[in-house]
């Protein structure tokens, strides 16, 4: 069985503790900020900066965990841990995979906040 894009228990708890209206604004912020982090990762890869790639992946992992976007978080964590290896290989495939996970999470979060 495919795991859900967003873990609803985590997301519901976030709404309970922070308030549904606030979480809607927080999702809007993520939708602006996350693409910037993905851009930063691509730039870091192009400039062979392990540190910047690792830091941006770490940041996106943290946000994925906050919203219950477990696959996004797992994918970002993989990049964080393997930053040096990915920069050495110059292979952008893991970044493409992460971008796809983010796109799925963003769609799911947008739907959840419309409910």
């Amino acid at each position, binding site marked *: 069985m495919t795991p859900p894009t967003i873990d609803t228990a985590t997301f519901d708890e976030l709404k309970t503790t*922070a308030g549904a209206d606030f979480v809607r604004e*927080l999702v809007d*912020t993520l939708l602006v*900020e996350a693409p910037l982090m993905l851009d930063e990762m691509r730039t870091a890869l192009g400039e062979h900066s392990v540190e*910047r790639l690792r*830091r941006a992946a770490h*940041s996106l992992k*943290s946000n994925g965990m*906050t919203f219950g976007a477990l696959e996004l978080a797992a994918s970002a964590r993989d990049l964080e841990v393997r930053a040096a290896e990915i920069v050495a290989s110059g292979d952008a495939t893991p970044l493409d995979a992460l971008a796809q996970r983010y796109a799925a999470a963003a769609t799911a979060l947008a739907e959840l906040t419309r409910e």
Partner: protein
Amino acid sequence: MNEPAAGRARLLIVDDNKVNRLLLARNLELQGHSVAAAENGRVALEMLHGERFDLVLLDMEMPEMNGFEMLERMVGDLQLRDLPVIVTSSLEDTGSVVRCIELGAEDYLPKPVNPVLLRARINASLEKKRLRDQQKAMMRRFATPEVAQDLQRSGFALGGKRVRASVMFSDIRGFTPLAESQPPEETIELLNTYYTLMFDAISGHGGIVSQMAGDGLMAIFGAPLALPDHCEAAVRAALEMIDLIRLFNAEQAAAGKPQIRIGVGIASGDMVAGYTGTNERATYTCIGDTVNLASRLEAHTKVAARAILIDGATHADLRGVDVESLGSVEIRGKSQPVDVFAVAAPAQQG
């Protein structure tokens, strides 16, 4: 320094991730706290030097200045070293968490931060800070800011270190008949005003009052913090003390109250400065021949009928102050005569 009101504190969030900053701020505001945010350690340190905060919530992974570097800076900063820091991060290796604690962080909360744990940890940290602030306030009440700072920096230990400094003794001339001529309440009031004026003059020139006894006081210039021009500072302080007494006397005369005169003795040189007493009750002071000489010079002001007397070492480092040599003087407790100089001072009484 004001203590935070119970349950409400001023908190600084340091995190480069906007979503994390907003969410943490929301949780803290819902708990009744007032919140500000910085996007990295450098900005946070600037804010901490410009505004009073009760606690910092610190992320580790940040550009420009990360959390580790910020903790290191805070440990080395007397103003910030006691400010509680709770690390909030999704660091996964235990070594990094241990390093945070070793660098002075009070606690560690993994992200995403659980609001219930957050509340508990913040309350515990604020309570500890409140107790520390109380201790510091107590210390400030019974010690000079310099000694309090020295205690904070080096900790308390009986014993001393050799320093080069100037020591001043001062007391009120004819205090006993004065005290007998008026009600004790008025004498206390007079002493309090006198001490306030003397403390202002002494601290204004970088000295500290280390002892007070009745109508007399002992002040040190050059310890616990070094003072390059300690001779000049001590003499300038003495001149200001005389001037303040003159102004005080003018007010006393106008109110039909008794006037006072003081005598000041200053000596400079090597001495041992530190804490003497017991582990339970101690005072910061200086001991040595220089200290004895300053005390003797103060006593000699009565004989010489001069307000300020200084020794040769103090005179040698003075610039632009009028002094008169009184020649070599036999001083009690000294086997050899001592060169004594009188500093030209204005009349104390109108």
